[in-house]
């Protein structure tokens, strides 16, 4: 039984713990021994993308030390996992020994859906979610980690769930981490188009694999008065989507 560390991510921790518990349950169901390192905080992505490579490096070293003892590190976010897998070696480029440690840990660090499918060959059983849904492919997961087929394969095993195509499914939603507050007007223009595409899809539910993007899209849909419900795909897969969605209370 592989010993897996759950990398909860800041947004799941603070805003939507359900996503963390859904990830925990899925990993347990897939046959992992899951632990949650209680010393974990932020992966340092906001610092790195702001140009503050030194502080990003500080947080990267912390993360590596904390997660190194496990067989695998798994997080429910392509963006946070992309930071640790793709960008830690860049953030630590000045320090070859640490950069090498980052690369080695990166090989054992996975986004949740890709870990479940590619490593654990997991398929959900007995999960029902009667709804029509559409899927937004978050950019970091898609382009830094190649997450595309895995969530579709998993969702294909959910009873009653009908998937509808989303026009521009691989186009950025305008979140971009700190981008959305640095350039709110541009970000708004981008997410407005995304919300319109979601509404045109005719789906009742919007799914995705990254909370930042989901909160951005849910926030816009709610402001628009749209009835579309928004969930992290892990919540549906874990059979936890009977709770209120991100876009309702």
């Amino acid at each position, binding site marked *: 039984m592989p010993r897996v560390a759950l990398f909860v991510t800041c947004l*799941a*921790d*603070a*805003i*939507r*713990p359900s996503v*963390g*518990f859904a990830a*925990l349950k899925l990993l*347990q169901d897939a046959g992992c021994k899951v632990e*949650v390192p*209680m*010393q974990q*905080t*932020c992966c*340092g992505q*906001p*610092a790195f*993308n*702001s*140009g*503050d*490579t030194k*502080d990003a490096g*500080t*947080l990267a070293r*912390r993360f590596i030390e904390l997660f190194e003892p496990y067989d695998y590190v798994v997080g429910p976010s392509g963006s946070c996992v992309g930071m640790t897998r793709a960008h830690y070696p*860049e953030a630590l480029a000045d320090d070859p020994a640490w950069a090498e440690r980052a690369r080695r840990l990166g090989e054992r660090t996975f986004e949740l859906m890709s870990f479940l499918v590619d490593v654990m060959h997991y398929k959900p059983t007995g999960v029902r979610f009667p709804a029509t849904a559409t899927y937004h492919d978050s*950019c*970091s997961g898609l*382009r830094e980690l190649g997450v595309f087929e895995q969530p579709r394969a998993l969702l294909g095993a959910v009873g009653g769930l009908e998937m509808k195509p989303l026009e521009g499914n*691989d*186009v*950025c939603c*305008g*979140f*971009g*981490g700190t*981008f*959305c*507050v*640095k*350039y*709110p*007007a*541009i*970000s*708004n*223009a*981008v*997410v407005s188009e995304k919300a319109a595409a979601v509404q045109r899809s005719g789906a009742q539910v919007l799914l995705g694999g990254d909370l930042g993007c989901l*909160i951005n899209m*849910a*926030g816009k849909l*709610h*402001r628009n008065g749209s009835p579309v419900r928004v969930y992290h795909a892990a919540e549906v897969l874990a059979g936890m989507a009977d709770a*209120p969605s991100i*876009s*309702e*209370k």
Partner: protein
Amino acid sequence: MHTSVLSFRARADVALTDPTLKLAIDRTTGTAERKRAAAVAAFPQFDAARDRGKRIKDHVIEHFDHYLLEFERNAIASGAQVHWASTADEASRIVVDLCRKANAKRVTRVKSMLGEAIGLPHALDAAGIERVETDLAEHIVQLGGDRPSHIVWPSMHRTREQVSEMFKQSHRVPHREETIEAMVDSARRELRDKFLSADVSISGANFLLADTGATCTVTNEGNAELTTSPPRMHIVTAGIEKLVPSLPHAFALLRLLVRSATGADVTQYTTFHCGPKKPGDLDGPEEFHIVLVDNGRTKMLAEAGLREMLRCIRCGACMNHCVVFRQMGGHAYGGTYPGPMGAVLTPVFDGLEKTRDLPHACTLNGKCQEVCPVDIPLPTLLRGWRDRSWREGLEPAAMRFGMGIFTFVASRPRIYRLGASMAVRMLGLFGRSGWIRSMPGLGAWTAHRDFPAPEGRTFMARYASGEGQRK
């Protein structure tokens, strides 16, 4: 209209509230995106071609000195006169001096973004030389008195309806029917005489062929052939990164360039220039000059974080697929080159201090690199500028201070946990209905969208009390 005096933010805000501009951008980039996707799908070897294109460019970048000297030697042997310019000013001064030497009253210009980058249109106007733009889109830009907003479609910020109005107001015999063909005819009637009576023609180059000293220019209107033959003098201005070893290398890159830019298999015209009119030639210029422009390129060669940008073949695919560009168009970027490639290049030309907003105006979504025909890691290069801006102390003090505090807290889990719980409680207070519609400090978000109230306690607090744990 000099938008460059405004800040990037102000220019973006202006662009975002212009529905006609948005319509024009959507029409052009939407078509470009569809056609490129179809062209790539119909060319199964695209990935292999992309890899080859990248290797050709990297090889030349590795051996710049060798190919530059080879090109110069062969160009001179073909009868061309070669000039070297290290800065934009020097380059445009060389061109204007050549025009003066030729007693030029009227010059024709074939669209060249390098010409824009070295300020040539302005320099010619200031020298009192009549400048005739021969590319249809550049003609529209000239009539409008503004600047190109895209490197492939310089007038993409104008709808055809606006262009129709402009032609009616300024052409001697304007079109009567509202069709594209009639509008093109109107431009042809207006421009054709001028093409034939110019004293000097100035063009750019898509490729410089080292083994022959020839230059290669692609157009869809044939203006690079039509307007460079009649005048007495032809001047080519080109950035030194346009070098390729020989013709097959140019064609390898051309296959990528055209598909990525317009989705066509080939351009309508692929024009080669090699030396002046030779004895026995029926026509051609008596003098042929090539101005090789550095303007920051050797600096990019020396800097690890920018070297890969020298691969750029100026197809425009990165901007056509950029969510930021597609909301506001090219003028908001303030430089000659817009979109992701422009956000990398403009700080090279204009200095980071004045342009540090550009590398930040990007969500780092990676689409630009995905569609780049020579695989330039644009997000990495943009982040590289952010890193440099941070190191040089150009980022706002509040940001630096905030990031310092954040790192301090995130390095201390107990304080971090406490902070997270407090933040969650605060968000809960403002979001009692389930949603936060406004909250101090959250204005940039809530101006446009709602923020979901947290579910309750943090994950870590709930997990610590035993929730979700199995034996």
